[in-house]
C-alpha cells in the first residue's frame, strides 16, 4: 500500500515514541508572531531554558500593527508593549525578526513569499491558519502557547498522527469561481467539525490547475473545516513558485531539493482514511451568511430555512439568525453591506488584489460603504505599487493600507462598529470577530467583496466583470 505525504513527512521527523503513546515530532520550521509568543518566551525564562534551534524559528508582527501608518511608538500602548516584547525576545534568543524590515507581513503570507515554507517540512506556528503552508506540500498546523514553549525549548512537539482524508475535486472551476469558493463549499459540505482528527489532502484536476496563491487560500481555511492541517502534493507549480526565493537553495542545490520534494508526495494508490469528491464544474461563487464558515451558500441561493435543516444543525442555524437578523429564505443577493474588507492571510496576496482591482477599475464604491484594501505583506504592497493597483482602488473610493491582519480579527484599530455588515475576503464570520460584538461578516472571494463594495450589496461579481475576462483563480 502506498504512503501519503503525511506519512512520509511524519516518519522523517519522528524523534521518539513517548510514554503517552504520542510521537515526538521534529518541527522543521517554527514561525512566531507577537500575540501568542510572549508568554512562551516568558515560560522559557522562568525555567532557565534556551531556544534549542534558534535558526529554525522566524518571527514577524502582523496582528496588532496599525495599517494606517506603522510609525513607532504605536498609538495603542498595549500594541507597542507587545511589539517591544517580540523585538526583545527575538534579539535575546538570536531569532531572525522580520517585523522591522521590508519583509514584514502576515506570517502566513511571508513564509511562502520568502521561500521559508517548503515541501516535506513540518511547520508549526501559534496561529490556527498555519494550515496555509500545506499548499506547498508541507505538514503545517497551528499550536497553542504551551506548544510554542515546547518548540522553542526542544524544536519538537508531542503529537498524535492524524488520519488523512483525500478531497478530490474533478473538472475545472468556471470563470469567476475561485479557490475561496471551493474551500468554503467544502466546509459547507463537510461541516465545521467534519475535519476533527483529519488532515485534508486536496487533489484532483481542479486543484492541480490552481496556481500557488490560490492553493494557499484553499489550505488556509482547512482549519475552518476542523482539519488542523491541509495540504496539496508538491508538483511543477510548487517548484516553479519556489525557484529563486530567498530561503530556497539555488543552482544544483535546487535540483537536489526538487528531488527530495518530489519524493515526499503521496504515492499513487496511497492509503486514505476516506475520500470526499466534488465536481469543480458545479461550483459558483460562495457567500457565508451565518456565524461560522460552514453556514454559506452559492451566490444564486437563498438563506436556509431552519425547519428544512438537519435536526443536528437547527440550533446552530437559529443562533445564527438570532445574531444576524437575516430572514430565512431571503436571497443572498441584494443583502446590503456597510463595509468591504479585502486582505488577510486567506486573500491578501498580489493575485487577490489584482483580481479585486479588475472588478473595481473605473468604478466607484457605493455611497456610504467603507471599503479598505490591506495587503498581506510589504512585499505584496511593493508589487501592487509597481502595478498601479493603489491608484485603481483609491480612485474608486477604497482606502489603501499598510500590511497586517487588520479587520480580519480587529486586534488593531480596524474594526466594525455596531451592527455593520461586512463583505470580507477573510476567513471567519464568528460573532464579534471583526471587532463589534454585533457586527456581521459575509465571507467571500476578493472579487465578490470588491463587487459588493461597488454595489453596496451582495452581487454576483461575474456580472460586474468585463466580458471575456479570464479565469482569475485567487
Amino acid at each position, binding site marked *: 500500500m502506498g504512503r501519503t505525504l503525511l506519512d512520509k513527512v511524519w516518519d522523517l521527523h519522528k524523534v521518539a515514541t513517548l510514554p503517552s503513546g504520542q510521537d515526538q515530532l521534529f518541527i522543521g520550521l517554527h514561525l512566531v508572531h507577537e500575540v501568542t509568543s510572549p508568554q512562551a518566551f516568558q515560560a522559557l525564562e522562568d525555567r532557565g531554558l534556551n531556544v534549542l534551534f534558534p535558526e529554525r524559528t522566524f518571527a514577524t508582527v502582523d496582528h496588532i500593527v496599525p495599517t494606517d501608518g506603522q510609525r513607532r511608538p504605536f498609538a495603542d500602548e498595549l500594541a507597542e508593549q507587545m511589539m517591544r516584547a517580540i523585538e526583545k525576545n527575538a534579539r535575546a534568543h538570536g531569532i531572525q525578526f522580520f517585523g522591522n524590515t521590508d519583509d514584514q507581513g502576515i506570517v502566513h503570507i511571508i513564509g511562502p513569499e520568502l521561500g521559508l515554507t517548503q515541501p516535506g517540512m513540518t511547520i508549526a506556528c501559534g496561529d490556527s491558519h498555519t494550515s496555509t503552508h500545506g499548499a506547498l506540500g508541507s505538514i503545517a498546523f497551528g499550536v497553542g502557547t504551551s506548544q510554542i514553549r515546547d518548540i522553542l*525549548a526542544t524544536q519538537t*512537539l508531542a503529537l498524535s498522527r492524524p488520519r488523512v482524508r483525500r478531497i478530490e475535486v474533478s473538472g475545472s472551476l468556471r470563470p469567476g469561481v475561485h479557490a475561496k469558493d471551493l474551500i468554503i463549499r467544502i466546509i459547507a459540505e463537510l461541516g465545521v467539525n467534519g475535519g476533527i482528527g483529519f488532515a485534508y489532502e486536496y487533489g484532483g484536476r481542479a486543484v492541480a490547475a490552481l496556481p500557488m496563491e490560490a492553493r494557499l487560500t484553499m489550505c488556509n481555511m482547512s482549519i475552518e473545516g476542523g482539519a488542523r492541517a491541509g495540504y496539496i502534493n508538491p508538483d511543477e507549480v510548487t517548484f516553479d513558485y519556489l525557484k529563486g526565493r530567498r530561503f530556497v537553495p539555488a543552482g544544483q542545490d535546487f535540483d537536489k531539493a526538487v528531488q527530495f520534494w518530489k519524493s515526499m508526495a503521496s504515492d499513487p494508490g496511497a492509503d486514505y482514511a476516506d475520500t470526499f469528491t466534488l465536481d469543480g464544474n458545479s461550483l459558483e461563487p460562495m457567500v457565508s451568511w451565518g456565524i461560522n464558515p460552514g453556514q454559506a451558500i452559492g451566490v444564486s441561493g437563498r438563506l436556509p430555512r431552519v425547519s428544512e435543516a438537519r435536526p443536528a444543525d437547527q440550533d446552530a442555524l437559529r443562533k445564527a439568525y438570532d445574531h444576524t437578523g437575516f430572514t430565512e429564505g431571503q436571497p443572498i443577493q441584494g443583502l446590503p453591506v456597510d463595509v468591504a474588507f479585502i486582505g488577510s492571510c486567506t486573500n491578501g496576496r498580489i493575485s487577490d488584489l489584482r483580481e479585486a482591482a479588475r472588478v473595481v477599475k473605473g468604478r466607484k464604491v457605493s455611497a456610504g460603504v467603507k471599503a479598505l484594501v490591506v495587503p498581506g505583506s510589504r512585499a505584496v504592497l511593493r508589487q501592487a505599487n509597481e502595478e498601479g493597483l493603489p491608484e485603481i482602488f483609491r480612485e474608486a473610493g477604497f482606502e489603501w493600507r499598510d500590511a497586517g491582519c487588520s479587520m480580519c480579527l480587529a486586534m488593531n484599530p480596524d474594526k466594525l462598529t455596531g451592527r455593520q455588515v461586512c463583505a470580507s475576503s477573510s476567513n471567519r464570520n464568528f460573532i464579534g470577530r471583526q471587532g463589534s460584538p454585533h457586527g456581521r461578516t459575509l465571507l467571500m472571494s476578493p472579487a465578490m467583496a470588491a463587487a459588493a463594495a461597488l454595489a453596496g450589496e451582495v452581487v454576483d461579481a461575474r456580472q460586474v466583470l468585463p466580458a471575456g475576462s479570464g479565469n482569475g483563480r485567487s
Partner: protein
Amino acid sequence: MAGGEGVRKLIRGRGIVVPGDDIDTDRIIPARYLRLITFEELGKYAFFDERFDDNGKPKKHPLNDSRFAGGTILLVNRNFGCGSSREHAPQSLMRMGIRAFVGESFAEIFSGNCTALGLPASRVSHEDALKLQALVDADPGLELSIDLESLTVTAGGQRVTFTMPDSDRKSLVSGTWDTTAMLLSNREAIRAAASRIPYLNGFAAARGAGRG
C-alpha cells in the same frame, strides 16, 4: 512538572451549563484581550461580550448566573473551542476557576491546549451531554465527578461513560501533561533527527548520515 501535583485522576466539582454547538475561541475570549503579554488577567474576560453589554452591564449568561457560581466543570456541546488557536481561551476559563470540560466534541487545537494546561476535556454522546446538562440545570448544587481511570462521569446517581484520546488520558493521569522536560530529555534523539532531515543538511542524500 513534578508528578504529584500534576496528577489528574479524579475531578470533582459543580457544573456550569454553557449550551450551544461550535462555540469558537473568539467568543470565549474576544481578540482585544489578546493584546496582553501575560495570561494573568484573562480570567476576568472569559466570554466577555456574551456576559456584558456595550455599557458593561451583565447580560443573561450561565457564567453570570448565581445558581452556577463556584462551578468548576463546564458542560458544553459540539465542536467547543473551534477557530483560533489562542491558548488564551482555556487560560481565561482556567483562571476563572474551570478545572474540566464535559462536551460532545472539542476542536483539536483547543483540546490540545486544555491537556497542556492539565484540564481534562471529556467527550460524551449527544444524549449524555443533554442528560448531564439537564441534571445540572435542574440542580446546580449537584456534584459531578470525572474519573479518568474508569472514564466515567457521575452526577446525581447517574453514571455515563466518556472518551478522550488515550494519550491525553495517560498524560493527565500520570501528571506528565507539561511536556517540555520530557521532550528535552530526548535531546540526543532530537539531534539525530535533525542530522537526517534533508532540508536541514543541504539536501544531501541523507540516509543514515547522522552527525550527532
